[in-house]
């Protein structure tokens, strides 16, 4: 290419459909969707992937990422993914779940899936609320945080402390990779990409269960502007939900 010549350096990932999203302004789901799609492209997996969608604001993931997809009932994506992977071990299988989905109703399924060491990759979007249903308390809601069902703020002696899924799953033998990342700034986005890559690799290399927890903003239900919500990730979420890698069998 000649100097001065223009090159398209950033556009939608190949496996993503070029359509408007249904997300609210400033919702991180959109960013996370794209990171997942980039990873699929990077490993050239579009033709070979089966996506397991879940119920939550990400319910339309199959509209955005152009891969074969099946819809799991609320919380059951890890079980559905297990069924898919056992049926077609030759496929790359990932599921995408919210924090209500994964840490509340689906807690048993995710732990057992990880513990069995299923060769699947789980993308976990922790936005500390039930987004889709209008901002109710989630198992990851911070202590003191007001939601529509914790109108007086989450009380640690009644509702307990937020669950740290990346740590809990990281402690299980079957988990080959577990990390917590964020997409609130460019540095963290780069780290998130690396983590995603590893969570893909542990499946592709038949090592075990792969897991990435994303801290994610929900401006709508946090009742914040998108920019303030984005800031909250760092100021309020990270102190309780530290970013980091909690298990990495590739580097062991």
């Amino acid at each position, binding site marked *: *290419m*000649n*100097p*001065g*010549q*223009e*090159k*398209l*350096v*950033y*556009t*939608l990932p190949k496996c*993503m459909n*070029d359509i*408007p*999203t249904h*997300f*609210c*302004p*400033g*919702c*991180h*789901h*959109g*960013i996370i969707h*794209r990171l997942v799609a980039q990873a699929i492209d990077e490993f050239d997996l579009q033709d070979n992937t089966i996506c397991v969608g879940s119920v939550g604001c990400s319910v339309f993931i199959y509209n955005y990422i152009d891969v074969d997809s099946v819809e799991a009932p609320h919380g059951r994506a890890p079980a559905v993914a297990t069924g898919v992977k056992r049926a077609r071990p030759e496929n790359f299988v990932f599921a995408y779940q919210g924090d209500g989905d994964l840490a509340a109703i689906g807690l048993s399924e995710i732990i057992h899936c990880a513990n069995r060491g299923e060769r699947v990759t789980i993308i976990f979007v922790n936005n500390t609320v039930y987004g889709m249903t209008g901002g109710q308390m989630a198992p990851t809601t911070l202590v003191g945080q007001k939601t529509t069902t914790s109108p007086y703020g989450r009380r640690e002696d009644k509702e307990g402390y937020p669950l740290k899924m990346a740590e809990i799953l990281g402690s299980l033998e079957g988990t080959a990779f577990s990390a917590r990342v964020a*997409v609130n*700034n*460019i540095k963290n*986005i780069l780290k998130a990409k690396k983590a995603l890559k590893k969570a893909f690799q542990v499946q592709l290399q038949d090592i075990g269960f792969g897991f990435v927890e994303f801290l994610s903003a929900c*401006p709508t239900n946090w009742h914040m*502007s*998108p*920019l303030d919500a*984005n800031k909250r990730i760092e100021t309020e979420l990270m102190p309780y939900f530290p970013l980091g890698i909690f298990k990495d069998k590739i580097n062991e």
Partner: protein
Amino acid sequence: MSRIEINTLRCKGCLLCTSVCPEDILIQGDDLNTNGYKFVICDETKKENCRGCAFCAEICPDGVIEVYKTVKSKKRDS
């Protein structure tokens, strides 16, 4: 000079892009698009400084931005 293209119809005016641009090129415009959002535009005065770093595009939740980088003339062709 590198440059970006904004699909203003799809922009939701969240302004996340403005928070990461090292050159402060992106600003909120005054108009609403058909979805009722005040979309971002380039600050015409700073536009030229675009580095083509794609930070704005990386963070945009709605995939609104495409980035075109211009190969620096100092570098050899590759």
